[in-house]
């Protein structure tokens, strides 16, 4: 082994909401050369952390110094009247704090990526509450697991092997003691990993959930079929759910972003709440970005609200559908965009992207992405959890400390430091 080779254990993976913290990372000459325990995506993310990097700040595509870039950013923000700050879910919590501070200073809007993923989940929670789950509890106790509108085999590759198919204190033989169902509109790769695949018709989630709820409550329904499922099959499902000792529902974007949206989530929550009168049931959104749960949390304690926050009046107001990034862009309201650790140009609807094209965009990201191509200013940053430390929140609310395992490329700073510099520079510009 060469002298410059070292191994770091218990490294959290900053890709998906599982935040698996058991990676063993080997480093040689300051570069990651091996990732043991990580899934295929994790390996790609860590071993490929140098791919596609932007190594110098750019203004209109031309390399500039960091100071010049920051100065230019401050001028853009100072001359804007309705700044949108967006992203945050793929960076660590300290960067969030700086972003809210800027939003408050210039009375802008700050939103995170949950507005286009589990935002409807939060709306569901706001109408009904939520009996949550936690991952080790599921592993230790849950005897019936349902994935609904979620494909962990592709999006959260270790979710099933690490938390579900592993033995827990009271589930000694997960094969025997635990049943896994998948409800989806198509047979995904996850279907191969479960005991039962239940295929429903597209856009019928709400009906199926409401039917299950009615059946759990003991109502007799005068129909033969709902959402492509025979009523007898639904009855059997409801009975089975009632007789579980500890059930868990994991749900994904198939539920939040399909027809029904937050109504689907509300129906799912009410189903789980009704089941709670019979036995133990819990639920958990399958959060995608590794720190999207953290973005909701930091926003909540610092602004009072989980996303879609507007400081126009000097105090935070909350209005999803109005202060959410897609809406404020599609409505043509935002006159500048500060994007941190996300790629709205790649993911937003066309009318939102059309507006992004018209306004100055400041893009802070370690890598070159679609948004970089449109950005007036690009500032590269260190990758949180690889090149700088920080804190993030697992999909079930557990905070995890992220490690710095290698140095960032020369001259590249963490998001939080870039944002602090922007704030300080902005203070100077605003005083003038």
């Amino acid at each position, binding site marked *: 082994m060469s002298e410059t080779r070292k191994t770091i254990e*218990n490294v*959290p993976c900053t890709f998906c909401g599982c935040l698996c*913290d*058991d990676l063993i990372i080997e480093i040689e000459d300051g570069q990651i050369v091996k990732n043991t325990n990580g899934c295929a995506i994790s390996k790609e993310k860590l071993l490929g952390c140098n791919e596609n990097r932007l190594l110098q700040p750019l203004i209109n595509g031309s390399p500039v110094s960091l100071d010049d870039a920051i100065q230019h950013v401050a001028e853009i923000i100072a001359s804007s009247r309705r700044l949108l700050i967006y992203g945050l879910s793929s960076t660590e*919590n300290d960067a969030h*704090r700086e972003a809210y501070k800027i939003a*408050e200073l210039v009375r802008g809007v700050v939103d995170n990526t949950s507005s286009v993923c589990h935002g409807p989940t*939060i709306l569901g*929670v*706001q109408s*009904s*509450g*939520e*009996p*949550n*789950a*936690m*991952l*080790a*509890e599921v*592993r*230790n*106790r849950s005897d019936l697991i349902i994935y609904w509108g979620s494909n962990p085999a592709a999006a959260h590759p270790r979710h099933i092997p*690490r*938390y579900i198919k592993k033995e827990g*204190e*009271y589930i000694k033989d997960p094969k025997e003691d635990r049943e896994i169902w998948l409800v989806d509109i198509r047979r995904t790769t996850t279907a191969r990993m479960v005991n039962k695949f239940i295929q429903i018709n597209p856009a019928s989630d709400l009906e199926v959930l409401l039917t299950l709820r009615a059946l759990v409550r003991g109502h007799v329904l005068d129909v033969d079929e709902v959402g492509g499922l025979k009523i007898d099959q639904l009855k059997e499902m409801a009975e089975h759910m009632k007789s579980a000792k*500890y059930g868990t529902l994991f749900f994904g974007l198939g539920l939040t972003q399909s027809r029904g949206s937050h109504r689907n989530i509300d129906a799912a929550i009410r189903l789980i709440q*009704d089941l*709670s*009168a*019979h*036995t*133990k049931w819990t639920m958990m959104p399958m959060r995608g970005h590794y720190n999207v749960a953290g973005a*909701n*949390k*930091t926003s*909540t*304690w*610092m*602004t*009072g*609200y*989980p996303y879609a926050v507007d*400081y126009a*009046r*000097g*105090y*935070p*107001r*909350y209005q999803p559908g109005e202060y959410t990034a897609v809406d404020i862009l599609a409505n043509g309201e935002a006159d500048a965009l500060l994007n941190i650790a996300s790629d709205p140009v790649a993911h937003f609807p066309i009318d939102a992207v059309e507006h992004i094209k018209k306004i100055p965009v400041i893009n802070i990201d370690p890598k070159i992405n679609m948004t970089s191509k449109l950005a007036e200013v690009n500032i590269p940053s260190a990758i949180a959890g690889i090149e700088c*430390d920080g*804190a993030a*929140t*697992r999909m079930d*609310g*557990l*905070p*995890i*400390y992220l490690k710095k395992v290698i140095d960032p490329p020369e001259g590249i700073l963490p998001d939080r430091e870039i944002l602090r510099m922007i704030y300080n520079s902005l203070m100077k510009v605003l005083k003038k």
Partner: protein
Amino acid sequence: MNDEIVLKNGRVFDPMNGINGEIKDICISNGKIVEKVSGSAKEIDLKGSTVMPGGVDMHTHILGSKVNMARMMCPETNRHSPYLATKNTRGGVGGITPNSYVTGYLYSIMGYTTVVEPALPPEKALSSWEEIEDIPGLDIGLLPLFGNSMITFRYIKEGDVNGLAAYIAWILKSVGGLGVKVVNPGGTYAWAYGGNIRELDTPVPQWDITPRQIMHGLAEAVELLGLPHQMHLHPNNLGKVGNVETTIAQLEALKSVKGHKKGRSVVHLTHMAFDCLGMVEDGKPEWKYLASAGEEFAKYFNKNKHFTTDLGQITFGPVMTMTGDGPFQFSLYQLTGGKAKWANLPVEVELPGGAGIVPFNFVPTSPAHSLQWATPLEFALNVDDIWRCVMTTDHPNGGPFMKYPLVIAWLMSKKLRGEWIEKAHKLVQERSHLSEIEREYTLEEIAITTRAAPAKILGIERTKGHLGIGADADITVYGFDSEKLNLAANPEKIIKHFSQAKYTFKGGVQVAKKGVVGKHLHARVFSIHPRLDDGLSIRSEKEIADMIGKWYCHSYENYTVPARYREHLEIPTEIDSTSISA
């Protein structure tokens, strides 16, 4: 030195030092109260003002995942309470669950300087430290939860109190805790399978141990370690009509615990309003048979000195109930006919069934709510020893902390109580003695129940809760002259002045003046780090690492809150617990 201040001519209430309304100068230097200052010290004339130590809130839920869940689930509770940012302070919302910045500011405005968050799930502590970064103007203590942890259960089952003490010590050091909180021991664990435990000797599922053993073992471990704050207990059977009986049984069961200091209580019973519900004669444990047990419990309290308590006073109006007592929260949700929102947050291994959150509204037209309101007042007005009785609302359960001035006014003014008894349901007059009580708390007694007593009970009385030499210069100045103003006859003045201190000093720095916060001061965190015998420490760390490896799904190495989140905030006190053998 230019940070020296002398507060002149104020009328001082400092019960810990036996000062009861004397005109007295107070000298401040370097954040501390000192005997004298140099001639260049800044002078503030407080003629006609009342001076007390900074307020100490020993039980308030201001941070953590349950508070964030409440904020996220109920944006409507904050929508109409904007709080504007200023040049020196941050903006936010100030409803039932204010955001972190405003939480600190609102406490400063009322003259509070020290608070304790009494429900910290240890494995989630990192988030709490991140939040504290954003809670200005306060000294904060954290009480980690132990009463339903599988690790606690293992030591209880093996009868290994030394091992349990070492686990507590490890947690306090790893997460920066001040003491030990126990919520519904065993009952919340039973909630992991939809159950609850209401009686002392009902076995916990899968473990074959009882709440009696869990509570007793934890209280013993706390005393073995010699922690400054006794076990902080939310008992079993909370919120059940007639539960004063089970609560007294639980307190009786703890009588045999030996305190590490002579004359010290061994348990703090928290939010007695929810723990001491009475029942009419020949009644059943149903809401229609509810009666106040305030006086009955005061009689027990006056006779039995082995415990202290706080009120958890119910105030009328919207509240946010949140406790580590998941099954109670579920029953509250069911009580609303399933109409309310209900969230449940399990904490793996440490609180398996989970904490619950239900927004609620206490209304004076309800007989049950009215009697629940009368109970803690009836209790507080019948206790002999206010040094063991602390004013709280169990924020935001009984009411938000912003309602403390109203509670203080109820305690101080029979006139105001009379007005509220009129507003409340008439059963208050039949099933409680509140309307017959003449007693009115004096200012000295208010200073005890909101300052001196909580500081003493928390074991931080060296620097908090008083104005003697060496104390932290946490000082509240109220803008009334107690010699000239008859407070009891003018309860609206009590509310006015206690809502808005004339000045609040925190560590010698003026943070608020007449409702305006002028300084955004970083919080500090008080923690206890017990030093263990090496042998015990080695054994315990190995056992804990094994249990974390087996039961959790994140690593032992990543459990401890890293120094970078703590070192600029934490003021650890090391205590010697090396006498506990391996």
